[in-house]
């Protein structure tokens, strides 16, 4: 991450403008590092944890991601942070950005799933709204587990 993803200007801007960033050396024995390592217990490095400003965990994952996929993850986390505080319109914008930044990003189908939920809550809980967004998961990612989860609503056009 330090060699490829973090130096990328769009990543720098996204992190500096939208997140408070903390970096911890897994091998450090300093009290400050040990506090983080014990609190979040990541099982592999690189390991990433995202918290909202109250300290609620929003997401975690391990492993290198190239800049485009990492930016999609960052947008996803911003969507989660907004949704946790019932800002559904803002949440929807971030989930759509996570889905559209790079259609090959692994988080894209999950982002479409949550974009549907954000739109559903934003637009007065209309079931047609969630169906419209989840149909996009079927169209773009029919093999995705997120389509499996959405399919239960029968979002096909005549369903």
């Amino acid at each position, binding site marked *: *991450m*330090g060699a490829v993803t*973090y*130096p990328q*200007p769009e*990543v*720098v*801007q996204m*992190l*500096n403008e*939208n*997140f*408070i*960033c*903390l*970096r*911890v*050396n*897994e*091998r450090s024995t300093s009290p*400050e590092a040990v*506090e*983080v*390592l014990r*609190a*979040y217990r*990541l099982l592999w*490095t*690189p*390991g*990433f*944890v*995202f*918290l*909202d*400003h*109250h*300290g609620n965990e*929003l997401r975690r994952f391990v492993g290198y991601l190239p800049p485009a996929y990492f930016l999609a993850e*960052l947008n996803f*986390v*911003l969507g989660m*942070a907004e949704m946790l505080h019932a800002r559904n319109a803002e949440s929807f914008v971030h989930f759509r950005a996570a889905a559209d930044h790079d259609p090959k990003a692994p988080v894209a189908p999950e982002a479409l799933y949550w974009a549907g939920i954000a739109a559903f809550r934003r637009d007065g809980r209309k079931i047609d709204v969630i169906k419209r967004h989840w149909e996009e998961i079927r169209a773009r990612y029919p093999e995705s587990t997120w389509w499996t989860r959405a399919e239960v609503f029968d979002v096909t056009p005549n369903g």
Partner: protein
Amino acid sequence: MAAIRWLNTLKEAKEEAVSAQKPIFIDVYDPG
């Protein structure tokens, strides 16, 4: 060249997060 602004302590990060109303991103890395 611009660089990511990394903090070193959780206390500092939590205080800034509350003040800025922004999420916290924690990267745990192995220096190799």
